[in-house]
């Protein structure tokens, strides 16, 4: 007799996402079968999201060392040394799946989480970035997701009082059922304020600060992030977590005061694995154990079970580890900032984590087994069989486009168009540090009371990485590096967010490995170690993986910061228009032109050139430091034509440009930027470029009210500045107003 499988009969560990082998491993560690509470802890800690079990073997490839790296990957945020006792902390994270379920709250809680990663280190968060990707805005649901995500980032970031200084928006079919929402946070601190996630020594007490614990996200983010969406997800929707930026603001101020006064030995934020992680990881890092009393946890709802308390992902909570004689002072700070505090544990020797609930022991396990004994999977990798075909599938345009029409259509593409509708919803001026605001290649922030400026750029390009993950990954690092260099900053360190499809597919793991290889190579060339990152797998809908979409966040230091750093909008009539970098290979593969004009994604993007990358970056840095060209812009999406148009639009001036053929106008070869050059700096700039062996092309000059492209033939064309401006500015608002 064969009954249909009763879902109720499914063993608990499988419902929690643990495989049968993992379940057996747990039995081996404990020497008995696990309790429900233990199972809950292992299941969250061993989820893909928390354990990096599929990615860990590959992440080791990243270069992570440099003399200025203070804290590398593995802690809540990476930390680098800025000199004179100043440090910067940087971290990036994804909140893709929660943002699909509920865009406002998903994005908002993503911001909350990334802030905690940074102030956990002792740093004051000073700026946020976001990289968000959706399907086409022609679709109403994508518009809903996009505007909801932006409102959520604004709602949380503005209220918590940390400015949002930029990011990226991109629209591509593959993100329709699986938007990407990545958020990045930068903090600064004095060296003596650095705090690590350690539980300290025997007798230290664990103080849970902030929000009450509720049944938030139980089976939520961590399990969610590890299981793909499919048609049934509508009915399995987990409870949504609501962000409380007000609570977070108080938590930030309280924690910073605790650090200032030297009252804590260590701090750990409560993220996706909640208390399970906040108790075990700091204990494991300190080589200690801990006695935890769940009855002390302040709860929002009655009758929560031990597994619920251990797995809850309630937001805005932190765990501080405190020497007993400092406890009263810590509680006093909490009272002053009007946040709740509860002593929930004591650090013990021996490495055992003991959890009590209702007076009974509900879990007793080696603290380090939750993190260090987590399984590692060497998943098979295999070059996709379709790749060679894709490379051969180059664009075949029967009739060459008219340059003016192509340019206008590109300016109207929401991925290229003015992002102002987004960034004007974000407070990007708070703290009075924003020297270059969103809307430029990189944002630039001063550190008051010093000569230092921090430049940050974030870059991703799913199409390029789909066509060649290794080249694509490397080029992102070079692009971000050039962007910060344009402000006068020296590239310093990188964080990465690796958004990929299903790691159980060999071709996804191949893309993953290749991307890491490419990023690593470029980081080695630029001496920008990877100091942190995040991996998001299972970004797929109905079995279709997203384009491999690594996002790079790159931090640069300008010391001294130029008095008048170049801007995108500094071109004036009469200045010459120059291009720096090589124009040799002219390749449209993966370009916005192919996608937007020909509806084509194919071919193989050109390879980066390490020597040229370095040279162009040096020219950019010295240009800014010497105060030569006042307006610069890197050439990326849409090629030189779009870069020139953007500089014209932002500066409010036309230009006349000589070109040879249209391919060169729209190709996206790396390591190039344009500059507006006043006559009196021309010879200095030429000398500078020659010193770094960087080719210079004099393309034309600025002036007039048109953007003219001339090659002496019928391809010559012209676009009115007003029309170009209108297209570029209105592309996003127009679509949001209803298509």
């Amino acid at each position, binding site marked *: 007799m064969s009954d249909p499988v009763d879902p109720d009969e499914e063993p608990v560990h499988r419902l929690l996402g643990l495989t049968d082998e993992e379940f057996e491993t747990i039995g081996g560690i404990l020497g008995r079968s696990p309790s429900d509470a233990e199972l809950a802890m292992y299941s969250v800690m061993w989820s893909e999201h928390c354990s990096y079990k599929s990615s860990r073997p590959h992440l080791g490839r990243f270069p992570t060392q440099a003399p200025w790296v203070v804290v590398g990957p593995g802690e809540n945020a990476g930390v680098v040394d800025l000199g004179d006792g100043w440090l910067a902390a940087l971290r990036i994270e994804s909140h893709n799946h929660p943002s699909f379920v509920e865009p406002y709250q998903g994005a908002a809680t993503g911001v909350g989480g990334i802030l905690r990663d940074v102030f956990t280190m002792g740093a004051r968060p000073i700026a946020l970035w976001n990289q968000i990707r959706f399907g086409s805005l022609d679709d109403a649901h994508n518009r809903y997701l996009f505007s909801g995500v932006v*409102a959520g980032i*604004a*709602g949380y970031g*503005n*209220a*918590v*009082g940390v400015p949002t200084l930029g990011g990226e928006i991109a629209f591509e079919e593959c993100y329709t059922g699986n938007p990407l929402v990545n958020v990045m946070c930068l903090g600064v601190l004095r060296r003596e304020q650095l705090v690590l996630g350690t539980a300290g020594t025997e007798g230290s007490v664990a103080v849970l600060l902030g929000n009450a614990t509720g049944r938030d996200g139980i089976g939520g983010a961590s399990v969610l992030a590890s299981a793909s969406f499919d048609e049934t997800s509508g009915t399995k929707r987990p409870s949504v977590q609501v962000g*409380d*930026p*007000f*609570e977070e*603001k*108080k938590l930030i101020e309280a924690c910073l005061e605790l650090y200032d006064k030297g009252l804590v030995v260590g701090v750990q934020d409560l993220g996706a694995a909640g208390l399970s992680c906040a108790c075990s990881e700091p204990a494991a890092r300190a080589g200690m154990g801990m006695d935890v009393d769940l009855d002390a946890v302040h709860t929002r709802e009655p009758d929560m079970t031990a597994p619920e308390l251990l797995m809850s992902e309630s937001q805005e909570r932190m765990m501080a580890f405190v020497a007993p004689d400092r406890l009263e002072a810590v509680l006093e700070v909490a009272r002053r*900032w*009007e946040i709740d505090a509860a002593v929930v544990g004591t650090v013990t020797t021996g490495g055992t984590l003991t959890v009590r609930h209702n007076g009974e022991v509900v879990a007793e396990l080696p603290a380090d087994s939750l993190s260090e004994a987590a399984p590692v999977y060497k998943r098979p990798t295999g070059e996709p069989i379709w790749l060679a075909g894709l490379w051969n599938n180059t664009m075949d345009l029967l009739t060459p486009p008219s340059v003016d029409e192509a340019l206008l259509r590109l300016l109207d593409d929401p991925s290229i168009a003015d992002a102002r509708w987004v*960034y*004007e*919803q*974000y*407070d*990007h*001026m*708070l*703290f*009075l540090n*924003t*020297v270059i*605001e969103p809307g430029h290649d990189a944002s630039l922030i*001063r550190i*008051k009371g010093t000569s230092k400026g921090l430049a940050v750029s974030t870059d991703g390009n799913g199409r390029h990485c789909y066509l060649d993950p290794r080249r694509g990954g490397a080029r992102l690092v070079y692009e971000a590096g050039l962007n910060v260099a344009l402000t006068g900053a020296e590239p310093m360190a990188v964080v990465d967010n690796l958004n990929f499809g299903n790691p159980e597919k060999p071709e996804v793991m191949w893309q993953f490995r290749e991307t890491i290889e490419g990023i690593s190579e470029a980081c080695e060339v630029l001496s920008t170690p990877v100091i942190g990152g995040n991996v998001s797998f299972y970004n797929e809908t109905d079995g279709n993986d997203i384009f491999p979409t690594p996002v790079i966040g790159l931090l640069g230091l300008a010391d001294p910061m130029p*008095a008048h750093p170049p801007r995108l909008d500094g071109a004036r009539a009469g200045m010459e228009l120059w291009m720096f970098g090589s124009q040799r290979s002219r390749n449209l593969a993966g370009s916005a032109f192919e996608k937007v004009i020909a509806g084509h994604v194919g071919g193989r993007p050109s390879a980066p050139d390490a020597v040229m990358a370095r040279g162009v970056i040096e020219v950019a840095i010295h240009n800014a430091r010497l105060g030569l060209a006042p307006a610069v812009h890197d050439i990326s999406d849409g090629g030189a034509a779009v870069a020139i148009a953007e500089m014209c639009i932002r500066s409010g001036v036309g230009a006349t440009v000589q070109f040879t053929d249209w391919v060169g106008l729209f190709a996206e070869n790396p390591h190039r930027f344009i500059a507006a050059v006043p006559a009196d700096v021309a010879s200095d700039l030429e000398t500078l470029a020659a010193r770094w062996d960087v080719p210079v092309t004099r393309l034309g000059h600025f002036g007039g009210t048109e953007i003219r492209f001339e090659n002496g033939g019928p391809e010559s064309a012209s676009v009115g500045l007003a029309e170009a401006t209108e297209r570029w500015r209105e592309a996003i608002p127009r679509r949001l107003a209803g298509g």
Partner: protein
Amino acid sequence: MKAAVVVFPGTNCEHDVAWALGIAGADAHLVWHRETDLSDFDGIVLPGGFAHGDYLRTGAIARFSPIMDEVKRRAEEGVPVLGICNGFQVLCEAHLLPGAFHQNRDLTFICRPIHLRVEDTDSILTRAAEVGQVLTIPLNSYEGNFTVHDPAAMRGRVLARYADATGSVDDESNPNGSVDNIAAISNPAGNVAGIMPHPERAVEEILGSVDGLVLMRSFVESMEPARV
């Protein structure tokens, strides 16, 4: 000249305001909302941010903070009191200024520099400015849409209106739907003022504008005569 910068839980512009007051020549001190004595101070600023998360209604909960009775008392004594953005909202809720705020007309948060036309210089906020002067100052709010029972009764109390770069005041230059483009007002005595955009964000060339300085200086200058 000592200025108090009041900090409610959720306030976030306190350091910026203190910085700008410093540039304008005052000695600024942060004061927690549970304090009840401001007799030492020659001027009081309620800075921007999200006091109490802006929950329920912007400024509604902050109005009941212990410090607010003292702010009222000092205001009645003629001490300059300035509310910026969220601080303006708190002053309205506390009935130190007329009117109320609701969501921006387009229901989005707005962070960008806008133009203001100075309408009246008889106040602690505008005494150093000139009528008709156009200032470029960042706006940064979601609930910046000013409304008042009887706009006509606001005559002589409107300090600045939203305008375009040439100073013309119309619907087009109204970023958030505020009645009569009102961006800044004062009480009849002129010693309590509120402004929705952020003058403290426009006090240094490197940040893009110094147009806020004339307003910050007005405030600082107003502190002197009363105290000497």
